[in-house]
Each structure stands twice: as C-alpha cells, then as structure tokens.
C-alpha cells in the first residue's frame, strides 16, 4: 500500500503506480491537467515513468473560471 496526500486529502493506493496510472484510475484526461509531485511539476511526457512513493504529496490541477 502507498499512502499519499492527493489534493490535500490523504489517500491510500492499493498498489505502487505511476502518475499516468493514477490519472487513468481517477478517469482524468491528462491533456487538461497539470500534476505536481512534492512541489515539483511533473512534465506530461514523464507521467508514465514517474512512480508515486509512500508519503508523496500530489497535486492535480486544471483550469477553472477566473478573472
């Protein structure tokens, strides 16, 4: 099990996975979001090779209405 903080909430992943696998599990279209792992932006082409480790802080953001 991998314990992480995802968008400010604690979450347990059943198995070790990559950013790409996490986005797929959450049914999030990777083309419209950005991901930060431990305060560092993960480039889109690195989602498949970036593994999520125990204790990671993951942020997944998108664009919303604003001024």
């Amino acid at each position, binding site marked *: 099990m991998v314990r992480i903080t995802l968008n400010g909430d604690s979450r347990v992943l059943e198995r070790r996975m990559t950013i790409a696998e996490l986005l797929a599990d*959450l049914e999030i279209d990777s083309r419209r979001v*950005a991901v930060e792992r431990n305060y560092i932006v993960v480039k889109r082409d690195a989602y498949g090779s970036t593994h999520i480790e125990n204790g990671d802080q993951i942020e997944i953001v998108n664009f*919303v209405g604003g001024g």
Partner: protein
Amino acid sequence: MDKLVIAGREFTSRLLIGTGKYPSHQVMQAAHDASGAAVVTVAVRRVNISDRSKESLLDYIDPKRYFLLPNTAACYTAEDAIRTARLAREVGLSHWVKLEVIGDEKTLFPDNEALLEATRVLVKEGFVVLPYTNDDPVMCRKLEDAGAAAVMPLGAPIGSGLGIQNPNNIRIIKEQAGVPVIVDAGVGTASDATVAMELGADAVLMNTAIALAQDPVSMARAMKLGVEAGRLAFLAGRIPRKSYATASSPAGGTIAAGVRA
C-alpha cells in the same frame, strides 16, 4: 482599432476578459463572442477528485480564437504564485501568466513586495509575466525593471465596480511606462472602461462587470464599444479643459446685430 502588442505578440482587441462567475458556460461563451476579446483569463485550481461529472471550462473556449491567460488568483505568497504559474504552464502549454500575489483578503490588494519577488523568479524562468498591482507609478516602474511584459494597475478593488479611483495615477503610470499598461479590476460599467482607455491605458481587463451584469452578453458588447470609444478618443487628442465658455457658432451676423448700436 490599432493592435495591442504584448511581448511581441499582437492582439486584435484591447479588452481582456475573465471566465469566472457567469450564470452558465453558455452565457460566458456568448459574452466572450460579443466582447470581441482575444484574451481570456482562467484560474488554476485542484481537480475535484470525487466528482468528475462537471463539464470542463475548456469545452467552452475555442483555443484557436482565444488566447488563454492563466492567473495566480488567491495566492498569498510568492512561493504559491510561482508554483501555480509553473502548473499553469503545464496545463496550458503557454508561458504567459497574469501574476497575482494577494496581500489582504478584504480588499484583495496585492502584496507588492512578494509580487516583485515572484516576478523576478518567473521572468528568470522564461515566463511572460503580467503582474496585477496597485495604481502606484513607483511599483509599476519596479515591476517593469524586474522584467514584467506589461503592468496591470487596478482601477479599484477587484469586483467592486467602483470605476477608476485614481485617474491621475493611471495617466502617470502610462506616461512613464515602457511596457503596455492594462487596467485590471474595478470597472463597473462601459464608461469606466472608456475612462481607463482615455487616460492612455493600452487595454482593460475585467470579469465581474460583465459576468454579473443582469445581461452579461449586452454588457460584453457595451464594454467592447466603451474600450473602442476610449481608445479612439485618446488617439484623437481631446481639447484642453477650460473654466469658461467658448461659443461654437459665430458671434457676429445675428439678426439682433442691427439694433445693437
């Protein structure tokens, strides 16, 4: 109208508008269309993990027609604003950012010290930085010196609709600026946008004045016309103000002239 140029990029409109607070995505889309805007701002927020059903804002913004300008709204530290700008770059694949570092919850006035720091960092990282700041000529000059691609002084507090509170400062900011001046925030109605443009501003950025108008689509068109009117009037060169009247019609030759002697 003459084109707005920021960081070497041309825009067909001098009105920049937001995407927040509209009654619906459809109304927003119609208002964007009516405004003639070429740039629309967006905010960066956490994806709702538990509810993925909501429609995406991006389904209602044609990226071929509108240039997306992400903001760092609601960031209260330079660090948060910098992180948000980096994330925005990854979502939008553009290195432009409307930089906000807020210093006070009630007024939403900027924390200029942190804003300057964040500007320096992001410029060094290759961002085109458009900072939202006070109507303070000294601060605007510091931001320009730090590499800002434009300066965006507020007309009045965000969402207040009070209009341009310090017209003289906006004029001074424009006179000394070597980068475009975009009046950002505080506009309430079309005449406010006109005043900003008449003072010499290169553009006006607004959200609430359109989104929360009773008829956002009509207000968007009014703002488009207000901005155009103000720009034309500025370029035309207004007459000097005088305290007393100067007749528009000839003084002589009236039918009363004969009996005057």
